[in-house]
């Protein structure tokens, strides 16, 4: 474990908060926007620096920071990243930057508060990715809720926005309960195993808990609790119903953020399986089944959708089901594919949702009956939409291909039937997406408002260019990402599979 001389992670978490505070201080909207943009750019730069200074030959946690926080519980302010989480930081920063650029002109009321909340959300999300203390993680996890509640409720585009905000918050609070239980159980178990008094032996530190011995029945309970908690956020069927509602009601830049950031799947990967190493192998099939059902279910329902944003929401549910299958496969290829696909979401799913938002903003609707023949009047938007669509179905040359290929290899390796389900689900997804594209973008423009549509503005093109460029680059040179994640994932796998995985690439 190496300790860097600059507290990079704290800077990453603190920077957006400072930006939010500055926004509170200035009165002028234009200045507030500029501050938000500058903060987002700075954040991205810091995050990218972090990736470049990240040492890929070390599989363990890096950039460790540990400060005393709640001494009575032995909870510390403990941050650190490894190969699994490091790439999520720049991607989060990029996604927030893109949403800020995309919503540059679309937020008309309470603009300052909007950007401040967005930055607070960014800070909490970075915290989720980098927290190594379970209590701190939970704090960040729940801290994403208040900004989201207000963002959905105040700037939502749908008529039922406050309902959606409430629904989202209630879902997440319910999901948080099993998480908190699991965390407390873990800490108490640590005290028991150390043979100390409850108050003295408590530990919330993730690296410590990883090595704490635990009876199998307790591991089963913890695994179930954690899977349940993260499944709500991921979302896995049947806990998915919040996502379509939120996608319909919330402001579209926020839908893009929510479909792009898959905190739940990250939680499954980071915490749920490694904390129950003995039983994870036995119960992985449960998670895989969960994922398979989500994949097929999401894709089938997507076939029936009549609204672009809802379609994208269901497709994203379907894709995340595949990612879950990849995680549950417990193979290096499946895991690599899962992480790569999660990173992809921040580029692809969010861009698609942003474009749906651009159309919503121009037409006031993304309903099928109001669309048709958009390609003629919005050619640039159509090109970007196609690029992201083919990336989302795993077309070669785009970043979707290596991810999907590895996911399929992983699931086939785990179980033959599951792989077949994966392939079937991906065909269904293609059918849903492309049939919808045919009806909305192509064909004759039937409605008058379509003819008066304006193609993408300069800032909108910029926002999409950033993501599109990365989609192509990752598609051509995916090995760069794999090199970063490889070491940590091999270590991750070794924890509960006693497979002789060679770590030769490290030396």
């Amino acid at each position, binding site marked *: 474990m190496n300790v860097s001389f600059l507290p990079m992670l704290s800077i990453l978490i603190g920077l957006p908060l400072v930006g939010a505070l500055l926004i509170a201080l200035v009165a002028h909207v234009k200045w507030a926007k500029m501050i938000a943009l500058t903060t987002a750019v700075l954040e991205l730069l810091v995050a990218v620096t972090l990736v470049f200074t990240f040492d890929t030959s070390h599989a363990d946690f890096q950039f460790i920071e540990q400060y005393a926080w709640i001494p009575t519980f032995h909870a510390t302010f403990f941050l650190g990243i490894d190969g699994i989480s490091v790439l999520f930081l720049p991607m989060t920063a990029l996604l927030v930057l893109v949403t800020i650029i995309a919503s540059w002109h679309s937020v008309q009321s309470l603009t300052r508060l909007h950007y401040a909340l967005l930055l607070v959300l960014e800070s909490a999300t970075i915290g989720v990715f980098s927290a190594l203390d379970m209590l701190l993680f939970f704090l960040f996890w729940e801290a994403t809720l208040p900004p989201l509640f207000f963002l959905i409720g105040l700037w939502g585009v749908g008529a*039922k926005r406050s*309902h959606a905000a*409430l*629904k989202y918050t*209630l*879902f997440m609070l*319910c999901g948080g309960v099993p998480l908190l239980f699991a965390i407390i159980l873990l800490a108490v178990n640590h005290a028991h195993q150390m043979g100390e008094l409850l108050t003295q032996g408590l530990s919330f530190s993730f690296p410590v808990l990883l090595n704490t011995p635990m009876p199998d029945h307790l591991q089963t309970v913890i695994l179930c609790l954690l899977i349940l908690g993260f499944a709500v956020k991921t979302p896995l*069927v*049947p*806990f998915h*119903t919040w996502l379509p509602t939120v996608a319909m009601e919330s402001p579209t830049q926020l839908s893009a953020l929510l479909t792009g950031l898959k905190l739940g799947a990250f939680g499954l990967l980071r915490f749920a399986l490694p904390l129950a190493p003995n039983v994870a192998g036995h119960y992985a099939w449960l998670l895989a089944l969960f994922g398979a059902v989500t994949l097929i279910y999401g894709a*089938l*329902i997507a*076939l*029936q959708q009549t609204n672009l944003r809802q379609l994208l929401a269901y497709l994203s549910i379907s894709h995340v089901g595949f990612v879950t299958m990849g995680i549950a496969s417990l193979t*290096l*290829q499946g895991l*690599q594919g899962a992480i790569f696909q999660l990173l992809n979401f921040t580029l692809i799913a969010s861009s698609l949702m942003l474009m749906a938002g651009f159309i919503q903003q121009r037409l006031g609707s993304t309903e099928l009956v109001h669309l048709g*023949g958009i*390609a*003629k009047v919005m050619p*640039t938007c159509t*090109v970007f939409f196609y690029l992201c669509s*083919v990336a989302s179905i795993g*077309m*070669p*040359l785009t970043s979707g*291909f290596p991810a999907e*290929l*590895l996911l*399929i*290899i992983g699931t*086939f*390796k785990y*179980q033959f*039937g*599951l*792989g*077949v*389900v994966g*392939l*079937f689900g991906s*065909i269904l997804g*293609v*059918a849903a997406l*492309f*049939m919808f*594209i*045919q009806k909305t973008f*192509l*064909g*004759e*423009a039937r409605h008058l408002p379509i003819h008066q549509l304006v193609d993408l503005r300069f800032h909108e093109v910029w926002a999409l260019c950033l993501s599109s460029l990365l989609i192509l680059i990752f598609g051509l040179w*995916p*090995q760069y990402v*794999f090199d970063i994640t*490889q070491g940590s994932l*091999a270590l991750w796998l070794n924890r509960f599979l006693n497979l002789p*995985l*060679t770590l030769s690439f490290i030396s």
Partner: protein
Amino acid sequence: MEHFIILIPLFPLIAASCIGVLHLFGVLDGEKSERTTARIANYAVGLSCLICFLLLGHDYFYQNTAVLTLGHWVRIHDLEIKLNVFAHGFSLKLATLFALLLCIVMRFSVNYLHREAGFHRFFFVLSLFAFAMFTLVLSANVVGTFVGWEIAGLCSYLLIGYLYHRHYATYNATRVFITNRLGDAAFIAGLVLCYLWLGNIDWLDIPVFLHQLSAQKLNLMALCFVIAAMVKSAQLPFTPWLARAIEGPTPSSAIFYGAIMIHSGVYLLFLIRPLLELTPLIAGFVAMMGLLTAGYAYFVGLTQTDIKTSLIFATSAQLGLLFLECGLGFWQLATWHLFAHISVRGYQLLMAPSLLQTISGTSIQKVPVFLAENQRFYTYATQRFWLESMMDWLLIKPILNLASDLHFVDKQIIDPLMGSPAPTIHAISSLAQAQEQTIGAHLDNTEDTFAQGSGLAGKLTQWTATLLHWFEYHFILQGVSENVFRYGRHLGHIANQTELALLKPRYLFTFIFITLLVAL
């Protein structure tokens, strides 16, 4: 010298990205810049063609290395995806023929598409297609071939839907694309099986390890690739997509479905030749389907009345014969047939419009007598044996029905079950209600206001309360006499309905399918 081979697919890719990016940002747009676009595309393919011929000559005199490895694309643990290409033999010859045809068609299109709105788009897609086909033919590993395979499919989609404001063009494009995805899925399954069972995905190394596998595994692997080949080369039962695909501009039809892309299925059979030779069962299957397709396309082709469709069914029939030859193991014959058919059919389709011009006025050849006399068979042939409707009924309809059922379940059952508070907009739907609320009266509210919950827990409590209340009211308060029987019968009826619904074929098949998957 041999290393120049990487430039063959690279030039068209660079051309495609140049045209694509410049057209997107409006630099290349309209009639003025047509010349620039045409130049970029033509030079790129021309250079590729030149390199092909140079390498072919080099191969003839000095013998190139069979496989050239240029590096790695992905390396994860034991999964190695190399960047390697065939620089020798059959693949190089085929690539040269493709390059030559691409050159001709590209040049032809410059005039053909002059002043078309989609001029730049057309050349972008055609360049991308050239890249895809070179990758497909030259790649020496399964993943590389698959990359070309997929992108060629995408290009085909983009050109069928070339006139994107026309409903039929886009509908056909989407349909063809989704049908082709079936084959792609089979291909990717074959790829994964190669990696899992052989630990290797290089075409030339696959035969070395094949002997370790059981017959069952060999058959499954061969079947995956064969299905992929059958979809791409429009063999039965996937033939109908081909007739839908000729919606695009004539040069693209010629190059995609007359000359190049349609033959990639046959090329795949050549690649898995060692595998087919070990699996007589699958080879027999290939031969049989080829024969059936040839017969089918022959009879359907006889009754077609427009030139492009009859040519496309002729293509289908010839492809069937090629599959037959490959299945029977006449590889030498198939090679000659392949090269001859590519050249002739490409030329025929390219010339189809001018052919119409020349023969206009002359009467067309009549339907053969035996077909004209047998009216029933004639009807079958004109209806293309209802193959497409059959597939719709067998495959698409059940899936769509299942989807609509699930959609209903999602909206009506799961969403309310997961609990969500009553939407605020529903809370006060009229002024009267608002007034009621202000005075604190609930005049026409039938629900028990004491037990109104939200969220999962809240709803559950509310439902329990309501249920108990219902029981109490109907059974205990109103007496046990007649209501018990009435509601009992009602419940029985609901149970019957549920059982009937569950016995519907789509659910039955879903259950059987799930059981099979689990058993696997």
